[in-house]
């Protein structure tokens, strides 16, 4: 073999080995991403990780600024924000729960709490907040599993009733309905108008089944009802039955916008924004979206109507940005200080103002309430009632909604009665519990 050929041979061999080595290195690098909770530095300072999906949803830099304030007030504690979209945060937390590498402080959705608590990966907050000197009587609500608090809602996005003023006026309805009968009459009057507007909109998509929570169960909660009995499913009780039969009545009257079975929340908002439905139950977070999309639309906010004879406090469905502490955290005291800071009257007011949401501290008042009539109305409703979302803290909450949604679809399609639908959903739910 000539020297030239030998060198070429060596060069190709070297290239092959180098490529292999690079591949192995790349794969190793992929598998060895840094994980785990915060650490103690040599000088006694601690760094805690806070994973949440809130930062990307807030105006640029505002959440970091709030955390900077915390760091100034608590020298020695550094907060490393791990921010990502909701879905990524969820995946990251579930993976972290399995591998024992959950960040110290975690943003939580109520639907995850039961699973995390059962796995023992999130800590009971009551003793931790007590040690941090925080009075938990200021909290609007606490999410408990087996009598231990695992999540505190930091801010709440409530779901009141939106009404299209123009359509209501055309239909001869002077004021937003306050009772179920008034609502059914108003929906019928709107549907009877010339044009293609429907009275109400009911998204029952099985891909995103939260319509069952916000648009179906809200009717039961608004009348002080419940779908649980001592923490167990109770779908066949009078509260749920009367709410579902009320919706079934409207379905039979054909006052619900078409396409319900595959409709999602964003479709619902679009139907309302374009003036194709007169009334909807929706998140307050969409007020600005509706205003931007259709500046000419005049609409009002009111409480979800209650049963005709109901006079008590009304439950208002809500979604939360919740917070919890990892059981594996080595710096639970620092983590509890961060939670106390975020739940304090002043910070919580600021955060709820940034998020256009309602505070998790009873004494906090968001600034937008002073400037905006619709938000003021909503805040009045919020304060007059109580946040109600019984899906929070339940196991596989989304699947429960999907199961009930599928049974209701089957009943509305005429394949079974509503009571049969509730009985079947009850059996399915009992299996999940």
């Amino acid at each position: 073999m000539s020297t030239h050929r030998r060198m070429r041979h060596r060069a190709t061999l070297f290239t092959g080995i180098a490529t292999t080595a690079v591949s192995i290195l790349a794969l190793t690098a992929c598998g060895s991403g840094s994980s785990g909770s915060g650490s103690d530095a040599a000088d006694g300072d601690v760094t805690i990780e806070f994973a949440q999906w809130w930062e990307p949803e807030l105006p640029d830099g505002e959440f970091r600024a709030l955390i900077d304030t915390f760091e100034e007030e608590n020298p020695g504690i550094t907060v490393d924000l791990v921010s990502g979209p909701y879905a990524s945060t969820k995946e990251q937390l579930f993976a972290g729960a399995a591998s024992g590498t959950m960040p110290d402080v975690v943003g939580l959705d109520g639907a995850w709490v039961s699973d995390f608590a059962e796995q023992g990966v999130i800590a009971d907050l009551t003793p931790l907040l007590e040690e941090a000197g925080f009075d938990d009587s200021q909290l609007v609500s606490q999410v408990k599993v087996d009598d231990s608090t695992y999540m505190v809602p930091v801010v709440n996005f409530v779901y009141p009733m939106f009404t299209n003023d123009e359509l209501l006026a055309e239909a001869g309805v002077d004021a937003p309905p306050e009772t179920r009968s008034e609502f059914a009459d108003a929906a019928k009057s709107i549907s009877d108008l010339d044009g293609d507007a429907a009275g109400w909109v009911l998204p029952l998509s099985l891909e995103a089944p939260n319509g069952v929570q916000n648009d179906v169960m809200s009717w039961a909660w608004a009348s002080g009802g419940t779908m649980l009995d001592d923490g167990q499913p109770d779908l066949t009780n009078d509260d749920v039955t009367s709410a579902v039969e009320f919706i079934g009545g409207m379905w039979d009257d054909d006052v619900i916008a078409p396409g319900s079975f595959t409709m999602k929340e964003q479709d619902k908002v679009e139907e309302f924004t374009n003036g194709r439905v007169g009334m909807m139950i929706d998140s307050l977070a969409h007020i600005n979206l509706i205003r931007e999309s259709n500046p000419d639309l005049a609409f009002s906010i009111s409480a979800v109507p209650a049963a005709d004879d109901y006079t008590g406090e009304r439950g208002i469905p809500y979604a939360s940005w919740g917070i919890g502490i990892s059981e594996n955290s080595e710096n639970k005291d620092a983590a509890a200080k961060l939670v106390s800071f975020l739940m304090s009257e002043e910070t919580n007011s600021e955060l709820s103002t940034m998020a256009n949401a309602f505070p998790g501290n009873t004494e906090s008042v968001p600034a937008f309430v002073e400037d905006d009539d619709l938000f003021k109305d909503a805040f009045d409703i919020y304060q007059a009632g109580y946040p109600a979302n019984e899906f929070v803290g339940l196991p596989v909450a989304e699947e429960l909604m999907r199961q009930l949604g599928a049974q209701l679809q089957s009943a509305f399609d005429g394949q079974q009665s509503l009571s049969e639908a509730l009985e079947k959903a009850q059996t399915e739910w009992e299996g999940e519990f």
Partner: protein
Amino acid sequence: MSLRTLTPPDPETLVTGALPRKRRRLRRAGESYGFLAPTLILLFVLMIVPIVMVIGYSFQDNVILRSSSEFTGTANYVTVLTDPAFWKATGNTVFFSTVSVAVHLVLGLTFALLLNSPLISVTSRAVFRALYALPWLFTAAVIAVLWRMVLSPNGIVNFLLNTDVEWLADPQLALGTVTFINIWAGYPFFMVSLLAGLQGIPQDLHEAASIDGASQVQRFWNVTIPQLRPIIISLLLLDLIWTSQQFALIWLTTGGGPIDVTEMLSTYTYKLAFANYDFSLAATAAVLILLMSLVLAVLYVRHQKARD
């Protein structure tokens, strides 16, 4: 004085200065494996390991989310195979896949024959080819959003037909509608492949058949189809494998509903994993789908081998 036994030098080494043949062969094999190593490692890490892990999960309970999982034998398989929802999803998948694939073939072949007609100029052929191939260029998410809007109760289809049909939300229509959307999205693949096949059929065969007195229809069945058969079989098997695993389109249009009329094996498995967080049962369903796909894959590979 002791005698040292000397090994005689390899004559080839002496003459050419090259390494002995055995060493050379070993070295060459080493080089070959060196070059193959990156691919083999990637295949091992990205294919073999996950597949083995999923198969392993299907025989355990409480996997991934709990640290204490136990071997449960075939219990997960019994649970999945006795679940009516699994069989409903299997039935829907079979309907969705076979109808989609059959219509893909008919439509793809029809358009390919039209485009291959000598009556169409080269420029028109290029324009029509691009036009007909358009659906193939969209991703599933775009197709889903597009058709959701087009077929919504207030959409353009109902406007043009002056109807208020709930194409995707009506339990009687939903499966047919998603199948139609999938047909629309997938026929260009058949069309482009079959057009290439048609253009490769020697003209002599058609001329010979014409001289023998064969009609257009006879030439189609006795010349065109036999010449296209290898391509058609490959396309049918590949499309069956792909369509039976369609997830994004179903999930984004109906989510498996209304009720369960568009539930496919893919959405059924997804819900087990990411709505129920039951990764053991999801792994079991995935292994069952793998076995079904494997039958098709084996048929495909055998067909390819036969062709070679």
